């Protein structure tokens, strides 16, 4: 945004954004195109794009003169065919792409100078023309929102759109999504969509699609391959397997987590192995056969999208104040997942009574809350027996959540409380419903 006085100066000179103008400052004459100014930085500095394509910032002073120039011959407008006019091959698998926003479809935002979501997902598909040879694609422009701004209300909306599409003839679903909370949404969809009729593949990117090096292109093509051809009937996340652009991993929606802030292989299968990989050339390699397959029946996909927002995720750490439980209890929360240390610990034998969690856990449970215990180790399974302190927490009424990640346990708790009575919800929390809990821990799930 330019300053008010600068906006006025542009207005009186009749210069609009993107128009050619002449700027005279301190006897120096410059010509170029007026570019928008991000909200950051000095609002009195004019950004001019010279004919060589470079931008420079020139300070506006009382002596600065601005003149509008005749537009140079406009570059030939390119006709970019929309995805609807693109010829899709009807013999290919019918796939619905549900667009929700995120880095995968971002470009420069002049509000801040950073990147922001496109509102036209067609633009994204134009950069991945090979999709037309993979899937018979149609598009639902559901929302354009950053994943950190999403809530359970968006999860419900996405789940409904996916179920509707599957029940109306799509064999698979692609959901483009911001990466920050993609693993929360993938967990939510895993619980909300029952009796899936086909693959639901969530995909994002770590580099925005306005750069030629974006991981979006390979991620999207791989997701399309999976949605159009796979016999998997689960919710999964499709992202780069390594820093190279040569294959993507397909990871179970309840067993995947963003493990790096910026790398393209940030998403890792946790307490599991990826279900499959898709190579750059489009070959799907399954790593196990314990995934749920497309049923041979006509049964519809059911939506079970209730969610209780009064559920919390709490992290225990040295010096943490257990009073936080009392706070939630007071606000009428129906449950909380504790992200404990190690095997599922919280300080319960500490000599510092104000830091002792046991009384608060017991009180929360007695008040009717469900308290689940998980581990901030992320990898591995919690245990309620090995140490005396673990047994004390168990005896206070906490439910140990096996090898569920804290985030998944949190989503599951909210979903259980939104769809079941409390007793049933408490019983189901540590039971496997959709692959979120493994009965066994295999030796190569944790390494490197």
């Amino acid at each position: 945004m330019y300053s008010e006085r600068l906006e006025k100066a542009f207005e009186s000179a009749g210069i609009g954004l993107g128009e050619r103008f002449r700027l005279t400052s301190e006897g120096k004459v410059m010509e170029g195109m007026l570019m928008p100014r991000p909200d950051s930085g000095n609002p009195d500095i004019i950004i001019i794009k010279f004919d060589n394509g470079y931008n420079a910032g020139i300070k506006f002073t009382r002596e600065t003169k601005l003149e509008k120039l005749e537009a140079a011959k406009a570059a030939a407008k390119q006709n970019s065919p929309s995805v609807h006019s693109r010829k899709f091959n009807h013999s290919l698998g019918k796939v619905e792409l549900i667009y929700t926003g995120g880095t995968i479809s971002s470009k420069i935002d002049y509000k801040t100078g950073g990147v922001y979501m496109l509102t036209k997902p067609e633009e994204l598909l134009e950069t991945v023309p090979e999709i037309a040879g993979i899937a018979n694609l149609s598009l639902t422009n559901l929302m354009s929102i950053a994943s950190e701004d999403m809530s359970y209300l968006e999860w419900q909306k996405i789940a409904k759109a996916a179920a509707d599409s599957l029940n109306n003839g799509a064999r698979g679903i692609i959901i483009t999504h911001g990466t920050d909370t993609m693993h929360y949404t993938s967990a939510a969809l895993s619980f909300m969509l029952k009796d899936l009729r086909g693959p639901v593949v969530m995909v994002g990117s770590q580099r925005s699609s306005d750069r030629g090096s974006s991981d979006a292109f390979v991620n999207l093509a791989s997701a399309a391959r999976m949605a159009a051809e796979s016999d998997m009937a689960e919710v999964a996340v499709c992202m780069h397997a390594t820093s190279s652009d040569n294959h993507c991993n397909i990871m179970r929606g309840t067993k995947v987590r963003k493990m790096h802030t910026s790398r393209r292989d940030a998403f890792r299968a946790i307490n599991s192995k990826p279900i499959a990989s898709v190579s750059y050339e489009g070959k799907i390699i399954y790593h196990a056969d314990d995934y749920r397959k497309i049923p041979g029946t006509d049964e519809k996909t059911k939506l079970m999208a209730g969610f209780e927002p009064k559920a919390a995720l709490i992290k225990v750490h040295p010096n943490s104040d257990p009073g936080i439980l009392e706070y939630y209890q007071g606000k009428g929360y129906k449950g909380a997942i504790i992200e404990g240390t190690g095997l599922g610990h919280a300080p319960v034998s500490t000599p510092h009574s104000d830091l002792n969690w046991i009384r608060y856990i017991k009180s929360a449970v007695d008040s009717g809350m469900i308290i689940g215990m998980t581990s901030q180790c992320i990898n591995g399974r919690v245990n309620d027996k090995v140490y005396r302190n673990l047994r004390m927490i168990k005896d206070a009424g906490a439910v140990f959540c096996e090898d569920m990640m804290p985030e998944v346990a949190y989503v599951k708790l909210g979903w259980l409380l939104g769809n079941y009575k409390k007793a049933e919800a408490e019983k189901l929390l540590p039971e496997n419903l959709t692959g979120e809990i493994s009965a066994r821990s295999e030796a190569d799930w944790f390494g490197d």
Partner: protein
Amino acid sequence: MKDKDYYSKLGFKCGLEIHQRLETRTKLYCNCSTVPAAEEAITVIDRRQRAVAGELGLVDNSTKFESQKARKFIYHVYRKSTCLVDIDEEPPGNPNQDAIETAILISKSLNCFIPDEIEPMRKAVVDGSDPSSFQRTMLCGYDGELKTDGLKVQIPSIFLEEESSSIIHNTPSEVVYGTDRLGIPLIEVDTDPTIPTPQDAKKIAMRIGLLLRLTRSVQRGIGSIRQDVNISIRGGARVEIKGFQDIDSMDEIIENEVERQRKLIDIAAELRKRNAGVGEPVDLTRIFRHTEAKIISDHVWQGGSVIGAKLHGFNGLIGLEISPKTRLGSEISEYAKTAEVKGIIHSDENFDNYKISEKEMRELKEALGIGKDDAFILVAERKERCEKAISFALMRARMAIEGVPPETRAADSRNKTTRFLRPIPGGLRMYPETDSVPVETSKACKKLEGKTIEIEAIRKKLESEIRNRQFAEQMLWSREMPVYEEIINKVGVEPVVVASILLEKFKELGRSGVPVETISTDALEYIFSNYAKKKITRLGIEEILRSAPKERWEVDRIIKEKNLERMHKAEVRRLVLHFKDRPRGEIMREVMSKYRLVVDGDELQEAIKNQGS
């Protein structure tokens, strides 16, 4: 005679882009070391890139061309000189402030305007040389001027940008890059296209190079400075020549490029006279099903295709030589080769070597509808490569009717010619760098107030120090200048001694195989301080240099091992006494033959003179 008049009549336009790596502690946008990797790669990654639109929503021509090639890019990643920022896995940090100050200093020294705010931009680069598919670049100065030797040239822009990766290995389907060099700050100084002759271009390039060196903030050594030249003549188009290995052959390569453009303009005129045109690709595979021409059968037998096209009115012109060892046909072939084919066959070639039968030739001409004035081109390869190659070749043939294609070309210093790299990029490939914020320049400008690089002043200072005009001029242009200055500033030693050692002795020792470039500045400084303290003689300096020491302790060891400790004045006098009554010349010879490395010549002379007294 190709003088100024000759070039001015041709409408010769020539401008330079000088690229110089800066000497900073860290890279431009991250904290990696700028010292090239002397290490093994810790990991190797491979990437694909594609064309995306610039800020104005359009895709640049060169970007499109490169991404059509769909090459795989492989990057070697090092521990100390590469980080996640380099390989496009972490957002950039803040730009290196020293680099920005150097860019502003250079801009000021070339009388440029400095923007109040530097806007970081991305310049699309899809040849893979940057894993992020763009180079971060900032306009730091504009509308400047350089005057030298009666020449005046405008400096429209000075950029600070990221150095690209170095090529380790290159094939049409993949390129292997090293990422240690990637991201080192690089200054680009551009001149406007008004340089009158190829010889002046060389002069100005040298002058800008000198100015950059005199900032004392640039890297030295092979590849740390590169010159690109933009050339056109009337009726032609801008051609950018990259990769001059050495500045010496610059003028000759430019001369040949001018001749190339003249020939292309002549050919275009002839083609237009003939109302020339370019046909559509035709699949000719069936004609060559049983061919004995190995160049074709090799591909047909493996299921490949033969695709040809008519070049209407091109007969006889494809085979014309346009620069030493290059014909129009070779230029068409260069385009086709970017689609991973070995080359094309064209009708101006000698077909005796190919064993194409008369029947095949007849059928081919029939299929393409070749008349008397027409030519044709052929490609045999896998079908999709064939199709791509022929469309690239036809693109080039079509441009032949227009004249000179606007291209980026590589300098070939062996043949003194240029070769096609890619279509010339335009402003469409610019995009704002959204991961970084603009840089206000007021602080840096204040810090540099009153500071510029004044070559004349530096020349005068050297002349007064060294008191030898020739040495002073040589030193000004020498890469050893920063070393000279450091020694002069730290050690109280006669500048002429340092100058003559650095300029003459270094060259002499280098020729005799001594790796003088490995001698550290610190070791040199220590050697000269020993000399200043009269611990060694001048000839002793040379003797030490012969061992190319890198550390101070090595200097001490060499002095000890070679017995280079300078003989005390009293001792010299005692030595001379042994030769009492012998002729002076003889004493001099006798002593020097035995003690030349440890006896100071002046002291010896003095002792001889005084022996009787």
